[in-house]
């Protein structure tokens, strides 16, 4: 499993500003120092998790896990990057771990979605829990339609779109984060965008892009 290193990701769009003194207070284990840190950052952590996982309950679990890791690892934060960037990496790693676990559970037939026992490559299975394409197309607002369409993507494609298009990372950075080549990122992005264009903008023939 590829873990994100300090050098691998530039300043991300998790732009929440955290007072360095607050981080140092957490590192010293001062009582009460964690609370304002959590208050300042939890909404951003949840938003990123929600988009990567496309499930509100999983996103809440991921947010809990992120802050457990933060509490355990904050001593290892040496301030080489902004705290927000470090927190972003922790969040992405937690979400990727959850996605891998979910994929394994799905392969074992342990996760019940719309098609509980479909094969891992079955696209309709991958939309489990998200809206159906027809439901997406019926949504009037473009942003809401984009958000709903994101949830219909296969998990690997969704992670690429969220990290690159919404979080603003480069193709190279996304490849490093996901532990795949840049070519794989580009292929996933192309397929995801073809599908999203059909769902969000519409292309007149309602085609399905993914095999």
């Amino acid at each position, binding site marked *: 499993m590829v873990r994100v290193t300090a050098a691998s990701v530039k300043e991300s*769009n998790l732009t929440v500003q955290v007072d360095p003194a607050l981080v140092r207070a*957490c*590192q*010293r*284990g001062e*009582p009460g120092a*964690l*609370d304002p840190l*959590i*208050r300042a950052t*939890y*909404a*951003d952590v*949840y*938003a990123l998790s*929600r*988009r990567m996982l496309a499930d*509100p309950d999983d*996103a*809440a679990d991921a*947010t*809990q896990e992120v*802050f*457990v890791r933060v*509490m*355990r690892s*904050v*001593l290892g934060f040496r301030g080489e990057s902004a705290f927000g960037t470090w927190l972003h990496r922790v969040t992405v790693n937690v979400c990727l771990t959850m996605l891998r676990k979910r994929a394994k559970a799905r392969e074992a037939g342990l996760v019940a979605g719309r098609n509980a026992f479909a094969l891992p490559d079955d696209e309709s299975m991958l939309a489990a829990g998200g809206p159906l394409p027809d439901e997406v197309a019926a949504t009037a607002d*473009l*942003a809401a*339609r*984009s*958000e709903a369409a994101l949830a219909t993507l296969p998990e690997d494609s969704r992670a690429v*779109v969220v990290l*690159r*298009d*919404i979080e*603003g990372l*480069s*193709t190279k950075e996304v490849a490093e984060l996901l532990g795949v080549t840049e070519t794989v990122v*580009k*292929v996933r*992005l*192309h397929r995801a*965008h*073809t599908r*999203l*264009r059909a769902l*969000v*903008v*519409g*292309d007149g*023939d309602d*085609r*399905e*892009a*993914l*095999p």
Partner: protein
Amino acid sequence: MTDDDRLPRFCREARSQFPALTSGELSGWPLRVTRAHVRRCAECAAELARQEQLSAALVSLRDQPPQPPPGLLEDLLARANRRNVRERAAVPARGAVSGARPGLSVAFLTVGAVASTGIGYGIWRGARALRHR
């Protein structure tokens, strides 16, 4: 076979570059070839316009993050304030030796270092005196 596979090769290759084109990551020869193709192909030009709409829609999502569910903050704060979590988080900061404060750890370590150096010096002096006899 997907619809992409049924497209002419130039259209297929040009469209595969659209995400990079709209994000500004495409440069050099691939950029020139893609732009030249879009100028000649009306269908790909229309597809690029849709891609630009999509990219704008996705970027707009940055300003509309999903809102956390009610109660999540309270859960997080309650968990953070649980005694065992705080202790796990704080142990190294509380002093590796004293288990209380880093300052006390430093004091213990300094006293230990001075004492062991003194004992070592005493043993060395004693051994040296024995050898001279």
